[in-house]
């Protein structure tokens, strides 16, 4: 009897807790999503409406002048070029990372060679280097190569980070050695093992790394702001900064730029959500 009453009480408490949880979650969702909706809404207003009170969530006058201004590919704000540049840089950088990091990670995970420990320690320790100390010298180096104001400056240096190597090495270590040993008994060499066995098994972490790398490159701000200058050569983040400066209070234009910059990453996010979240979670647990 007492037990039954206790269970009932617990259920009632449980229900209340559940409702409270839902309420909190919904409120949080509102807080997280509202600004994004505001960005979209503003991008479809005529400019004077974006600074006039009272504010309204639905545009009083629906207008696409924000978009037409930036998509016009004027020399001032060639947003389509920025989009294209970001896309090229993101894909190229991701490809570069996948190729170089996977090979290096495999070597560190499975091969023996002189200086392996030292090398691994050296690579990992760079995870703790604050990127800022590399800013000025890398600027000079990139200048020497003639890459300033070109996409190479935002594709290549970014692939030197240690995260990819670290991440993939973790995964490779977790693969059962038997597979490789069996293959070696059959006479396969390392290259074959890598391409025919390891990589196919690594689709998930590779997808995760690809997604995270693409996102990081797409959103990179500090470095591109300083190595890209001609408006036609910018990627979206420095482009947005220029947009904000050049169109100071023309928020329809600025928000349109923001929407343009957000769409690809949100699409990637929706599709690859699982990979991203898994990747973030894994790095937290092992790191």
């Amino acid at each position: 009897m007492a037990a039954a009453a206790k269970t009932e009480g617990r259920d009632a408490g449980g229900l209340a807790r559940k409702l409270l949880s839902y309420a909190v979650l919904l409120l949080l969702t509102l807080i997280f999503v509202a600004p994004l909706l505001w960005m979209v809404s503003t991008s479809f207003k005529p400019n004077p409406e974006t600074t006039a009170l009272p504010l309204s969530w639905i545009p009083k006058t629906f207008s696409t002048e924000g978009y037409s201004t930036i998509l016009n590919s004027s020399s001032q704000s060639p947003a389509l070029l920025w989009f294209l540049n970001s896309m090229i840089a993101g894909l190229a950088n991701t490809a570069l990372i996948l190729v170089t990091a996977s090979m290096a990670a495999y070597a560190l995970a499975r091969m023996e060679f002189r200086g392996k420990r030292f090398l691994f320690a050296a690579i990992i320790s760079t995870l703790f280097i604050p990127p800022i100390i590399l800013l000025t010298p890398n600027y000079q180096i990139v200048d020497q190569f003639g890459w300033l104001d070109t996409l190479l400056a935002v594709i290549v240096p970014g692939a030197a980070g240690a995260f990819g190597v670290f991440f993939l090495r973790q995964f490779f270590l977790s693969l059962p050695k038997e597979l490789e040993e069996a293959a070696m008994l059959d006479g396969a060499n390392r290259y074959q093992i890598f391409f025919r066995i390891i990589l196919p098994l690594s689709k998930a972490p590779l997808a995760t790394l690809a997604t995270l790398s693409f996102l990081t490159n797409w959103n990179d701000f500090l470095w591109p702001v300083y190595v890209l200058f001609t408006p036609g050569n910018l990627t979206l983040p420095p482009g947005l900064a220029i947009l904000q400066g050049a169109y100071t209070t023309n928020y329809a234009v600025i928000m349109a730029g923001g929407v343009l910059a957000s769409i690809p990453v949100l699409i990637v996010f929706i599709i690859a959500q699982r990979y991203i979240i898994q990747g973030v979670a894994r790095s937290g647990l092992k790191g």
Partner: protein
Amino acid sequence: MAAQGIEQTGAQPTPPAAGYPSGGKAESTGSFSWTPYVFLAPYLLLFTVFIVVPAIFGLWISLHNWDYLLPEQPWVGLQNYVNLFTPGSPTAGFFWQSMEATGIFTLFSVPFLVIIPLLVALILNQSFRGRNFFRAMYFAPYVLGVAVVGVLWQYILNPGFGLINYYLGALGIGEGAVPWTTALPWAWISLVGMTVWWTLGFNAIIYLAGLQDINQELYEAAKVDGANRWQRFVNITIPGLRPVFLFVITVTILASANMFGQSYLVTDGAPANETRTAIMYIAEEGLENFRMGSAAAMSYILALFLALISILNFRFLNQKEED
């Protein structure tokens, strides 16, 4: 390289004694093989050119008066470093002010970014319908870069026609327009607030993974022993999250200490450079004032601070775990 590998070998299995150049057996018996180096080379090339060389080159730059557009870069030894510790020098005042700004931001943002995501993760950890949807919503801002987040919040926080002041005014709170982006302490509140909005999802995901890693049997056992929710939380959850705490706190501190975009886009360091963070000032000194040696020196000092904090953090949290 891929092509090489496949051409080199046939596909027929043969015993290792046939002498393939890079069989596993050969490696483990110690005979030299190029293979590891081939695998490592591409990455090592990038690593050397863009991390190792700059790390050293940066030190070299910091020992000069360096403007890359001028024909000569005069050697000044440790002068750039000394200047940072000499009150009255052109850079000391601004540098330490920017370090202070970084410190203030880190101090105020880290607690929120460590605690609130934990609470969110605790709620999300229960299984209920729509959990993945909510998880996605909270994480969504994180996939947007600082540029989008910055220009968006600069608009929302605008004292005259921004969303925040609009609602505050409608609710009758406060007198007149709150100067979210132009005066203290509002600017700090703005910067911390928008950073929490932006990156909360990231930490929440990590906590979530950590929570799911805790052995559920521990909870069952505790329930049987009569422990209530709070006791279970304190005695199982918190200790179980120790390693995750270390990661979250370290990463959050480092991220906050490296804050640049928010100040650059939302407050532009206003008022009067009070919200100009160390990164912002270093970038300005090197790439806008063309004093790269001085900027490099500053970045190494900042790096030292961060290293110190990371070590202390590690020691402190690790020690607790050993208790």
